[in-house]
């Protein structure tokens, strides 16, 4: 019989089991890590047709988010500004800049600028911008430090777990409504004190404003 099965085959079952366990572990770990929005979304940074820099406009020049995204307080959708909005300033500033060629063309001829979408939720999620920004949830909570980005980058996973983190504990994120578009704002320069103040004031705001950040399915899915 030893002719038929060499000796090492005695170890075959063991090898198989170990191999399967190892493969299984690798697959599970791989899916665990790579198939989550944390990996697939965070860091996504496509090249936009116009080299628009949030860092320049917001951080350096101090524009308010709502100058361009003017419908954010009225609509579920935070609009990307029309070329005519850009031209409000750029018919004075950087009139000849080649970087703005596409914008000038668009404003003049009506040709559209195909911005690449960075943040996108699935169609069955009915996220509403207006209700978040009007009730003290800052842009920074979902978009990260977008005011310091030259090219927009996907900063947070925007997964359901991410949403629920805040919906379970709104007090940890809520801030005065007039500070919503002030992305650098904190309760205190000292992070430790700020965290403490966030806890205390957050709970007060949640109570005073009757905030019910529902965790029901119906809050986001319809």
């Amino acid at each position: 019989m030893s002719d038929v099965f060499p000796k090492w085959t005695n170890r075959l079952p063991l090898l198989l089991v170990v191999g399967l366990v190892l493969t299984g572990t690798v697959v599970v770990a791989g899916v665990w890590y790579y198939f989550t929005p944390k990996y697939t979304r965070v860091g996504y940074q496509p090249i936009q047709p116009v080299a628009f820099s949030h860092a320049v406009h917001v951080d350096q020049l101090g524009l308010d988010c709502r100058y361009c995204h003017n419908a954010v307080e009225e609509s579920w959708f935070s609009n990307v500004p029309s070329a005519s909005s850009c031209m409000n300033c750029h018919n004075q500033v950087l009139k000849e800049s080649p970087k703005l060629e596409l914008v000038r063309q668009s404003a003049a001829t009506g040709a559209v600028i195909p911005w690449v979408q960075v943040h996108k939720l699935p169609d069955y999620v009915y996220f509403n911008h207006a209700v978040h920004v009007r009730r003290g949830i800052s842009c920074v909570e979902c978009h990260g430090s977008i005011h310091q980005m030259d090219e927009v980058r996907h900063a947070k996973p925007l997964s359901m777990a991410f949403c629920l983190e805040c919906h379970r504990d709104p007090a940890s994120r809520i801030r005065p409504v007039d500070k919503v578009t002030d992305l650098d704002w904190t309760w205190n320069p000292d992070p430790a004190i700020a965290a403490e103040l966030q806890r205390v004031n957050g709970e007060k705001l949640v109570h005073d404003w009757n905030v019910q950040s529902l965790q029901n399915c119906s809050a986001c899915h319809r």
Partner: protein
Amino acid sequence: MKTIPPACPGPETGPHYWRSLDQLADTPEFRDWVEREFPAGASELTDPVTRRSFVKLMSASFMLAGLGLTGCRRPEEKIVPFSRLPEGYVHGAARYYATAMPTQTGAVPLIVRSNDGRPTKIEGNSMHPDSNGATDAHAQASILNLYDPDRSQRFLRSGSVITREAAWDALRQIGLPFSQSYGELGVAGDGAGELAAKRQGQGLSFLLTRKDSPSRERLVRLLRERFPKAGFYVHEPVDHAIHQEAATQCFGKDVTPYYRFDDTRVVVSLDADFLGTEEEAWLHARRYAQSRRLRSSGDEMCRLYAVESLFTLTGANADHRLRLPASQLPRVAAQLASAVLADSGLPGSQTGDFLAAAVRQSEGLPPGLLDPKWIAECARDLVAHKGRAVVVAGHRQPVEVHLLAHAMNVALEAVGRTIVFQDAMPVGEPGLPELARALNEGRVDTLVILDGNPVYTAPADLDWARTQRKAKSVVRLGYYEDETTQHADLHLPLAHYLESWGDARTADGTLVPVQPLIQPLFGGVTELEVLARLAPLERTNPYDIVRETFARYAGSDEEKWKGFLHDGFLADSGGRVVDVQFDWAKVARAIGQLRPANPPSLDRLELVFHRDAKVGDGRYVNNGWLQEMPDPVTKMTWENVILLSQATADALGLRVVDRNNNNLRTPLVRLEAGGYELTGPAWVQPGMADFVVGLALGYGQSHAGRVGQGAGYNAYQLRSSLSPHLLPGARLSDTGREHPLATTQNHWSLEGRPIIREANLAEYQANPRFAQAMNMHEPAENRPLYPNPMDIRGPDGLTPREKAHHQWGMSVDLNACTGCSACVIACQSENNVPIVGKEQVRRQREMHWLRVDRYFAGPVADPQMVTQPMFCLHCESAPCESVCPVNATVHDDEGLNVMVYNRCVGTRYCSNNCPYKVRRFNYFDYQRRPLDRLYQSPLTSSTRDEWELKRWFKNPDRGSRPHEEFELAKLVKNPDVTVRMRGIMEKCTYCIQRIEQAKIARKVAAGPSGDVLVRDGEIRTACQQACPAEAIVFGNIKDAGSEVSRLKALDRTYLVLEFLATKPRTSYLARVRNPNPQMPDAQQQPLTTQMYLEKNPPHHGPHGADTHGAGAGDGKGGH
């Protein structure tokens, strides 16, 4: 929420297509394509071949975007903002515009929701002085016609496609020989006389539909002046002008009746289906429901008597119903009139010979048709409620019956109270028979048919297809390329009313705008423009025409015009109520001319033609929502049937076979009358008059489009121009074949179950809590497997009931519901509910979230009918939730039973465990597959020579529906509701999207404050919004002052199957009938209650002495 729309032309830059083909244009690839190939833009395209490839390419570009740029990440998508933002435009926020849907005698004032440039939902305009914001099923469904892929999309001359400009040119050529400038053009005429006559329009004829539009009236008047010898004819397949004709005849003025049912205590309907198929039924339903509204047992309510031959919704809602062949109704009307007059105490000197004439007409009624006491007591009841009674005659009845009805109204002092007369434009234009005569005599050179489909709807004896051909040229404006197009030389596509400028007057005479929400999708044109170009006028733009008409009403003030468009009506422009003098002598003479008809018999059956509750006179035949809406009475879908009473069917030896619910087949029968015949399926309609055959018009069209093709038989084939509504002397024979039918509810009765609870008014007064007295025993050991989720304490120690700001609930008043089914279509439109086709309905797979259950009780010959809207009742202890293995249906804190589509794996356990049978399962991907190919496997079938699998690989989203159909079907969808796929369970959500939007709007308004409670009335579910009778009320039951809380506190409130302890959030208010105890057919109790008591005899246990009066029994003991 309404906003003033931007000026008519779209923004000069930016996504121009959004107004026409909307967001289809979202990808830059597509945009490039368009700019290179079609610089003029989508709405300018007239060549259908190009248009088709345009749609194809558009989808190809989607594919490219999907495939070419895909990496490991999701496909890259683009955000394409406007280049110049239209002022006031907020992306993503729905906008609402006021407009109106023109009808035959008026209009339905509307507010239409527009999502990013595409109309998505129709609602009534509650600001309008004569509307509570309600609509009817047709208005709700008309939005689907806008996106109908089969609608006419091309200009045709002699069958070949021409451009729009060529069509205008052809129109000009037609008008030219008739116009004043003809001679000046230097065309040599053969005879000066002939030329002069031609100039005046001799040989030119117009065939119009009935419409109450001041602008059209003005243009027609202009055309009449310009062409004094031209012929103007009006054709309506089911003409309701008889109401005005009769009023004009007996009052000697051009007046039209307007009924105020809300102020009545007794209503008698003489074959008038004013709650169903008469014009303005939605309006009547509101007023009628008001007259029957009960807040407490002390309230008075209206009583309705109906005399009719078919079983209509009006008969179903009547307290006393007399079934009678329609031909015998004039005699009964005369009997009633003579009795009323004799009782009313009007001096004979005033009425003259009227009484004698009425008595003469009332003679000769065959014995056995009715108990004379019925008439006598009915008349006595009418007279007893003088001033608060009204008699209505239906459009099917001859004018003499209308005169008798008005005579009674005068005698009952109803005029000025329950019925008023408004001044109106004269009617009485010649109709189709006169036009046929002119055509046959060769007097018509050019026939212009504006709207309508006369080749299909003309009575059979006119042989219209051939008659129409006798004109040298036929111009036709139509919504479909239908039967009439086949016999026309020039065909123009008609624009939908949501694409057109126009105006109309509602029933009360108020001027309303017809305002477009979108550019014509397929380049359709309006009737106004065609008339203006024929005239020819200098200004042919319909917008200018409407503004000019408006200026005559209210001046040319810009602000007034804006206000008119914003509000959707012109305030105080209602019709003038005029004083009228009844001409007794004239009416006496007129009714003397009525020729009595013989009653029908087995070999001389009487045919009654009626407008179908779903497809109307045929104009909605290609509307899938309406085709699949169960008929309010027969519950038949997808076709019409030949209605017979049980006795007639028995006498004819027909057996309506019902092997089992899934395989319903009925005998196919042949009907012959007047030398014409048709074949259709026979169906027994309980409660119909014997030897009467009911035929619904509107089906059996030969060019109906992909939805309506092959649905039903064509009843117009038997119609006669002499007597369009009734036809005696028909014969019926069995063909020996059978026909499958799809009906959604085959229940004949409630079988004694207290699902619907009713009482007579007297009984209700004696025992206001009769509805609860019918509650069944809860099982003694009533411990649910799972606790009520609303009572589980959270980590903070609070139950959801205590914690949440709102607790939603609903109350449905069965006393108000007339069964009209507007809610069914409203729900379908709001919630993206698909249609499934006849074959699937036969398998009970219809997807309607809201159904209107219809039950009969009592003898088949003359039953009582009840209706009940049924949808998810949002049980607190929902049986569906406890059986779901994947937690796909759960409760939220506000008491909603929510469905999580993404979790659902389609076990259907929930549906099996639902006692109310309100859950719907997507057996197929109805949204993405054509209905006739549901069963074809994606692996083995091919669409247009492309294998399904390959197609799927390229674009899994599209499905196998034809491209253009799919793209259009997408446009009607509500973007705030998920479109469900195959294998998913779904059900009523209480319009969760509206709830969330209202809550969000409130929170956005609240900002940094705690004022987040939604106000009562801010949320109206789609069904509530559409209901003309205001039977459905939704709101926050946590607020004791809300309307729904007040209604739930009424004594008539009950829960369906309360003994299951499911604690539904939707409660019903029991129905109350109001029979006259003196009447021979008065029942002690409603027949459903009698059946219930038979099944659950009252026992005299500890509950024996419970609160029950008038023999209601405490009814306990059923298990």
